[in-house]
C-alpha cells in the first residue's frame, strides 16, 4: 500500500547514519521558556513572593520578630472595624457590579446600533476609564463640594432640597456617592466589552433568526443573550475581584470615612499597616481577605462551567 523508497535511491548510503541531534524541537522549547522568563520572574518577585511573605508575616509580631501564632488574626477578627469593613466591601462590590452590568449592557446595546459618530463616541466614552484615578477623585470632590459644588448648586436651584448635601461627608450619602463615581468610571469600559462581544456575533445568525420570523425580543433572548452570557462569566469574575480590590478611589475621596462608612477591606488593611503601623495585623487581614476571595473564586468556578477557548 505504501510505496517505500530504497535508501540508496536518495543517497542515504553516502552519509554516515548519525548527522547530529535534531535540535529544532529542543531549541524551540527552551527559547519559548527563556522568552517568557523575565516576565515570569518579575511577576513572581512583585506579586507571588511578597504574598508568600505576607502570609508568613501574619504569624509573627513584626516589631519584635517573635512567633505569635494566631494572635494577629484574633486581633483583626476581634477588631470592631473588621466585620463592618466586610459589610462595606460586600455592599461596595455588589452595588457596583449590579449598576455597572445593567448600565453597561444598556450602553453597549446602544453603541451596537449604527449612527453617525458612533466610533468617535465609543472612543470618547473610554476617557473616564483612562484618566488617572486622582484626577477622577479631584473632579468629583470639586463637583460634590457642599459649598461651591455644581451638584449642590443644581439641587438648590431646582428646589430638590433646601440645604446643600454633604455628599462625601454625610454618613448616609458617602458610600452611594463613591459607588456612583466608581460606576461612572467603569460603565463605559463594561459597555465597550459588551459592544465588542456583540460585534463578534455572526451577522448570519441574526439574519437567519429574522428569516425564521424572530422579533427583537426573541433575537435578544436566543442569540444575543447566550453569546453575552458565555463571555460574561469570565469577565464577571475578573470584574468582581477588580472591584473588590479597589482602594485608591475610595481612599482619595473619603479615606474610609465618614465614621467608617466607606472603609472597605482594602482601606482597612491600609489603615492597619500605615495608620496604626501594625504590619502583623495588616498581614493577617490580608490573608483573611485573600481566603475570602479564594473561596469566592472556587465557588464561582464550580457553579459556572467554564468553557476555555
Amino acid at each position: 500500500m505504501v510505496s517505500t523508497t530504497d535508501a540508496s535511491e536518495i543517497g542515504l548510503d553516502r552519509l554516515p547514519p548519525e548527522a547530529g541531534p535534531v535540535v529544532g524541537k529542543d531549541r524551540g522549547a527552551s527559547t519559548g521558556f527563556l522568552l517568557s522568563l523575565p516576565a515570569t520572574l518579575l511577576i513572581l518577585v512583585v506579586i507571588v513572593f511578597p504574598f508568600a511573605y505576607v502570609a508568613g508575616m501574619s504569624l509573627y509580631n513584626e516589631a519584635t520578630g517573635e512567633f505569635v501564632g494566631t494572635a494577629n488574626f484574633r486581633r483583626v477578627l476581634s477588631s470592631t472595624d473588621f466585620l463592618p469593613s466586610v459589610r462595606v466591601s460586600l455592599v461596595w462590590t455588589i452595588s457596583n457590579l449590579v449598576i455597572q452590568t445593567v448600565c453597561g449592557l444598556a450602553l453597549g446595546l446602544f453603541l451596537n446600533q449604527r449612527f453617525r459618530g458612533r466610533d468617535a463616541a465609543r472612543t470618547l466614552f473610554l476617557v473616564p476609564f483612562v484618566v488617572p484615578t486622582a484626577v477622577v477623585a479631584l473632579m468629583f470632590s470639586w463637583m460634590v463640594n457642599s459649598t461651591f459644588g455644581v451638584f449642590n448648586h443644581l439641587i438648590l436651584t431646582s428646589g430638590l432640597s433646601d440645604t446643600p448635601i454633604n455628599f462625601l461627608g454625610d454618613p448616609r450619602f458617602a458610600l452611594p456617592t463613591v459607588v456612583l463615581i466608581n460606576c461612572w468610571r467603569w460603565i463605559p469600559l463594561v459597555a465597550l466589552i459588551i459592544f465588542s462581544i456583540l460585534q463578534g456575533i455572526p451577522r448570519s445568525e441574526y439574519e437567519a433568526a429574522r428569516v425564521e420570523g424572530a422579533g427583537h425580543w426573541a433575537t435578544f433572548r436566543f442569540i444575543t443573550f447566550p453569546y453575552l452570557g458565555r463571555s460574561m462569566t469570565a469577565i464577571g469574575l475578573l470584574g468582581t475581584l477588580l472591584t473588590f480590590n479597589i482602594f485608591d478611589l475610595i481612599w482619595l475621596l473619603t479615606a474610609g470615612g465618614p465614621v467608617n462608612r466607606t472603609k472597605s477591606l482594602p482601606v482597612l488593611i491600609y489603615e492597619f499597616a500605615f495608620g496604626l503601623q501594625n504590619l502583623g495585623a495588616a498581614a493577617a487581614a490580608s490573608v483573611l481577605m485573600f481566603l475570602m476571595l479564594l473561596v469566592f473564586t472556587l465557588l464561582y468556578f464550580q457553579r459556572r462551567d467554564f468553557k476555555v477557548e
Partner: protein
Amino acid sequence: MASSTPAPARSAAPVRNLGGAILRGLTLIVLLLIFMFPFYWMVATSVQTAEGLFSGVKIVPDTFTLANYQSVLQSDFVRINVRNSLLIATGTTLLTTLLALAASLGYLRYRYRGRRFFSRLVVLVYLFPTVLVLVPLYFVASRLGLLNNPFGLMAVHSVLALPLCLWILQSYLEGVPREPEEAAMVFGASRARAFRIATLPLAAPGILAAAAFAFILSWGEFMFAFIMGPDPARKTVPVALKDLFSSYAMDWGVVTAAGVAATIPVLLLFWLMAKYLAAGLAKGAFD
C-alpha cells in the same frame, strides 16, 4: 441624521424613521453629558479667577484667566512631580513592552513546558488583590532601601501593566499572518530576523497600543506610588494631586489646572490604544 450618511458597505444601515434618529441623538447627547461633564467642569473651573469661583456657581464661566496654569507651570508640580512621573512612566513603558513582546512571542511561537503555568500566572496578577502585596512590598522596600527609588516603582507598575499589554499584543499578533515570517525564514533569515523583518512592522499598532497602555497605567497609578515614594522630591503626579486637593488651603482654580495638566498626556496617548483595549481585555478573559 443617519439617513444622510452614505452607508459604507459593511454597515448597510437601513434608513430608519426620523423619530428613531432623534431619539438616538438625544440619548447620545445625554450620555455624553454624563460622561464628559466632569471634564468640562474641571476645565471650566481651571480658567476662572478666584473671584469668579467664589461668587457662585456658573455653568458657563464669566471670568477667564490663565493664571492658574501659570502657577501650576511655575510650581513644584511640573518641576518635580511631572518629571518623576515622566521618568517612571517611560521606564515602565519600555520595560513592560519589552517583557510583553518577548513573552507573547514565546507564548505564540513556541510550545514549551510551563506555557500553561505562565498564562495562569499572568491572569493571577489581575485576579490577585494587589492591595495584599502593598504591605510586604513596603516592608521589603524599606528594608532594602528601595523606598523612593524609581526602579522599584517601575517594576511594580510593569507587573500591573503586563497582563493587559500581553493580551493586547497576543490578540494583535494572532491577527498578523504568519506566512510572511515563515517566508523570510525560508528565504534565508534567522528566526529572530524573520520576526523583525516580516512581523514587527505589521505588529507596530499593537505594540504601540500596549506601550500606550503601560504609560497611561503608570502615569495614573496612585496606591503604590503613594506608599513607595513618601519623599516629597519623589512624589508622582497622582500623589501630588492628592496632596493638592486634600489640603485645607486649597485653591480649586490651581487644583483643577493641575488636574487638566495631569490628564493631557493620557489623552495624547489614549487614541493609540483605544481601539485595542477592549480586544485585549476580551482576550484575557477567555484565556
